[in-house]
């Protein structure tokens, strides 16, 4: 089933014959003279009173019955997109779109799932639009944007988000969360089994209860609010990684950085076994933990420490990024 859906191409869905429901009804039942007067007066009043850009906006209002646990695929080229789960079996799309993009709006709702969006043809671009979408809370949501920010709230199915340069913000209890951006930031306040957050130059912030977390940046900063992450791996090449908060006794946390700093801010009562290794970085221990040098016979600085009798397993590996242990 999923394999078949993956072959759907966004460009094909907005062509002629698609269910386009624009909010610009054609003028009917008016005489030619009346229409001309109406158009002229609209043009004059628009030019005199409306700032450029605003006059080109059109409103969207689409309402469809939808399955309670269907797949919802959304494409938006530019602007902002908010998707919120609700306890009704319907999809509602409201918002504004530039008139130049209106003919690229599409929506299709079936028993198995739904597709909607504003996407250009070929390599064209589209002006920014604002979409506010309500979906049944059990839906699985898949979103792709180029330059549109994404906000997802209260969706309980799987959530898979991609934006080239838009920021991503997710809150709620998705079944699993995958979020990726090239230059946008990613913020997640979630309770989920799996969270995978990747960005190149954007920042990542993760807060919540996660069984299996993974974050990755190249140059962006990472902030992890600890306390309820059972297993996590947090990686960067050059961006700082900071973990702030408690550590569950059974947690396994790995931090990998090449040149950026790794900062662990752990409460005094944290029970953990630490393994810290840096090839060419500096380790600063403000936790007053007793660091023991291990003798593995390789270059670099290699230490272990046991906090409060041990418990969680924490490893930190850097090439030249400094490692700091501190309290919150």
């Amino acid at each position, binding site marked *: *089933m*999923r*394999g*078949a*859906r993956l*072959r*759907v*191409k966004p460009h*094909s*869905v907005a062509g002629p*014959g*698609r*269910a386009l429901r624009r909010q610009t009804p054609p003028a009917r039942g008016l005489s030619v003279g009346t229409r001309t007067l109406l158009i002229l007066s609209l043009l004059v009043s628009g030019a005199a009173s409306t700032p450029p850009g605003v006059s080109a906006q059109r409103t969207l209002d689409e309402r*469809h019955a939808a399955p309670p646990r269907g797949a919802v695929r959304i494409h938006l*080229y530019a602007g902002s997109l908010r998707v919120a789960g609700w306890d009704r079996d319907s999809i509602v799309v409201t918002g504004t779109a530039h008139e130049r993009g209106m003919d690229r709006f599409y*929506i*299709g*709702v*079936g*028993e*198995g*799932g739904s*597709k909607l969006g504003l*996407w*250009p043809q*070929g*390599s064209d671009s589209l002006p920014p639009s604002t979409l506010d979408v309500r979906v049944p809370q059990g839906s699985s949501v898949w979103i*792709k944007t*180029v*330059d549109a920010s994404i906000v997802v709230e209260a969706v309980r199915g799987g959530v898979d988000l*991609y934006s*080239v*340069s838009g920021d991503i913000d997710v809150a709620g209890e998705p079944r699993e969360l995958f979020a*990726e*951006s*090239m*230059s946008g930031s990613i913020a997640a306040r979630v309770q989920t089994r799996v969270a995978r957050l*990747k960005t*190149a*130059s954007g920042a990542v912030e993760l807060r919540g209860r996660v069984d299996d977390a993974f974050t*990755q940046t*190249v*140059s962006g900063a990472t902030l992890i609010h600890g306390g309820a992450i059972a297993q996590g791996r947090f*990686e960067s*090449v*050059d961006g700082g990684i900071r973990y702030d908060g408690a550590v569950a006794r059974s947690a396994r946390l790995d931090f*990998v950085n*090449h*040149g950026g700093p790794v900062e662990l801010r752990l409460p005094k009562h944290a029970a953990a076994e630490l393994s810290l*290794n840096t*090839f*060419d970085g500096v380790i600063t221990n403000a936790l007053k933990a007793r660091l023991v040098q291990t003798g*593995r016979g*390789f*270059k*670099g600085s*290699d230490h272990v420490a046991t906090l409060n009798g041990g418990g969680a397993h924490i490893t930190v*590996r*850097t*090439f030249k990024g400094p490692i700091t242990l501190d309290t919150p």
Partner: protein
Amino acid sequence: MTAPHVPTDRLHDYVDDLLCREERMLVERHLAVCPTCRAEVADLRALLADLGELPAAIAPERDLLPGVHAAIDASAARRTRVQWLAAAAAIVVLAAAAAGVRWITVPAVSPDGAVASSGTVDDLWRHQSAEMERLLTYSRQTLDPATVRVLEENLRIIDRALTEARAALRSDPGNPVLEELLLATHRKRLDLLRGAARGGT
């Protein structure tokens, strides 16, 4: 005159029940007179039926995770070897996915599980990155210039890190932490390229 066939994407939507009522009726009207499209729909439905027969999940006979953790803790050296082995396997899978049916030389694995040198694995990752860059050529043209700048700047950061890690490994061969860092950086390079390819319109 025969009506043009329904595009395959739309037939997929039809089978997946993603069409609105009006479109569904249009497709069904065409299917009534077109044996070719009917056959394609039948194939798609058969495929979906076959997929539906597959179990949603296959549970292992026992909980493997504690054993995996114990094995990981047992020896840092062994852990590194397993990681390199996994990396080599991942590269093979990625290469097959990216380039279709294609033979690729797998590093020799001796009976005791030892993998070829880290240099060989490094070369395989380099090869894979190059392959992905080739695939990215088209998508790159559709990316916004600002995004291309972000991509190139981050590739520079990664390549600098790879150069440093390789030089360090030459001065400290076999250092498991350096090998782990090199591997992690390679993975990020591939992820970045894959992400950029996904971003094309």
